[in-house]
């Protein structure tokens, strides 16, 4: 139902919305700005907003001191790897739950979600010991497994709600039309599910990219992603705000760009099923 909104009200709400968005975005903006300052200006009081001597020195130092590309490649590996394996498990699981639900399907879904409510630190010690004994510490394979398991509940939930929206009758119609299970999947299910799978993939890549607790705890060098890269700049030798900011900016830039281009897809994926 359309509601009449007076121009004044509309303006107030617009200003309010932009203000809130700005407040939320401010830390990111401040990080980016700081990365272009000298260390002295970075801690200068009162803080300088945009009128300072812009410099790229921090980026040069950061690039010199640590191998950004290696961390970034690890991040890409972990994000894509964990997403791929999660999908391999989650798609059949979500199909089964959406189209052939059993007596306990709802309970299983709730149980899976409940694992997300446990503080991860509760599992740190046992997992660390298991990783140590199996020689998985600081290996890409080990971290991919952890990240995959970590995000699996959310992926299954997202796909489940998405698949639920596909009317079963359409699948039945294809069966009546003589389609085998394989052809039904290929010609009817997959094309209808692609947008849902795409937004799930995007969200999972972002979640895996940003995951810090496990990647910081279980990696040191070989499998270390960009979270380690940032952390290495908050060093005991004292804080180097400008360099830390430069490292952070380099770490979040790829995912920010991806998120920007995929925002339509993401919003659609996250709100799917909200309105019937």
């Amino acid at each position, binding site marked *: 139902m359309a509601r009449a909104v007076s121009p004044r009200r509309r303006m107030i709400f617009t200003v309010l919305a932009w203000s809130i968005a700005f407040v939320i975005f401010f830390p990111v903006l401040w990080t980016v700005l700081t990365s272009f300052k000298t260390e002295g200006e970075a801690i200068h009081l009162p803080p300088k907003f945009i009128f300072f001597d812009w410099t790229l020195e921090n980026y040069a130092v950061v690039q010199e001191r640590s191998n950004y590309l290696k961390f970034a490649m690890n991040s890409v590996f972990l994000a894509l790897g964990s997403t791929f394996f999660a999908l391999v498990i989650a798609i059949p699981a979500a199909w089964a739950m959406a189209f052939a639900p059993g007596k306990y399907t709802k309970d299983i879904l709730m149980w899976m979600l409940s694992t997300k409510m446990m503080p991860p630190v509760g599992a740190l010690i046992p997992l660390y010991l298991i990783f140590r004994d199996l020689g998985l510490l600081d290996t890409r394979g080990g971290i991919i497994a952890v990240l995959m398991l970590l995000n699996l509940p959310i992926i299954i939930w997202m796909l489940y709600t998405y698949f639920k929206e596909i*009317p079963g*009758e*359409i699948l*039945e*119609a*294809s*069966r*009546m*039309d*003589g*389609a*085998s299970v394989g*052809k039904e999947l290929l*010609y*009817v299910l997959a*094309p*209808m599910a692609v947008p849902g799978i795409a937004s799930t993939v995007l969200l999972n890549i972002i979640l895996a990219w940003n995951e810090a607790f496990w990647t910081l705890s279980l990696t040191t060098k070989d499998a270390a992603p960009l979270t380690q890269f940032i952390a290495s700049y908050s060093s005991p030798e004292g804080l180097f705000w400008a360099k830390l900011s430069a490292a952070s900016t380099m770490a979040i830039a790829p995912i920010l760009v991806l998120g920007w281009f995929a925002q339509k897809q993401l919003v659609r994926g996250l709100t799917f099923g909200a309105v019937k």
Partner: protein
Amino acid sequence: MGTITLRNVRKAFGDAIIIPGADLEIGHGEFVVFVGPSGCGKSTLLRLIAGLEDLTAGEIFIDGQNVSDVPPSKRGLSMVFQSYALYPHMSVRNNIAFGLKMAGMPKDEIEAKVMKAAATLNLTEYLDRKPRQLSGGQRQRVAIGRAIVRQPKGFLFDEPLSNLDAALRVNMRVEIMQLHQDLGATMIYVTHDQVEAMTMADRIVVLNRGVIEQVGSPLELYHRPDSVFVAGFIGSPRMNLMTGVVAAKHKAQTIGVRPEHMAIIPSGGDVDGTILLTEHLGSDSFLHVDGGEAGRLTVRASGDFAGKPGDKVSLKFEPDRIHKFDGSGRAVR
């Protein structure tokens, strides 16, 4: 050919028994309508025939071949769904062609068949549109087109018209009947609308709580209902069902008289009553009469009937049109 036989077909979901056991023979080229109130199992029975539900027990034969364990894709039947169930990502052309592609038919042959079906259903100019760009009636035509191109052994319709508005429904009803005449194929049609059942069917199967109450031609059911349920379900307006003293006079637990089988006379009828309401349809008038112990009755009168609410009337039943039923609801003849 297209004969369909059900033998002791049973369906249960866990403890809930939907169909306790159904037997039915459907001949080649017959138009059979399953009718009953919602939840009576008519759609389930259709889906069992389609193969979309597994049988709990019993057997289904198509052209004499036992298909109880054959998947829907191999049964050679077409189905039109209530929601149309078109493939949203395909054009009308591809929707209609899908079944033929699945069968591995050569491209030019598919094209010819699709064009022919589209011409039959007035869809030619919409072939390149997506389902979302079509109106409800057009979508229903595409769903029917998808069913007819494959030249199946039989057609299954699951309440295909219930999403259409009243005027369109009457048109599509005629079109489906025309299609049946042209194709001469076996059709099973599920509806809860007894008017659709009466007008379309060669034979009607009346279902109540999963049990087949009666099978017969529309007029057989109308004139000789086997049970109180069928008597009350078939016919519009409903048959007047009376119990108590009025029924006891005819040595029955329940008697039924249709609105058109009662005459309005000045006095001395079977039931005396007062007019509560009159509905004027032009050709006929329907009177709602408070018949005292007989309950509320509907009576058909001529279109120019002059009675008003509050008038006293006496109703005379046509003696050979009184349906009698025993305590278990079965007809006594």
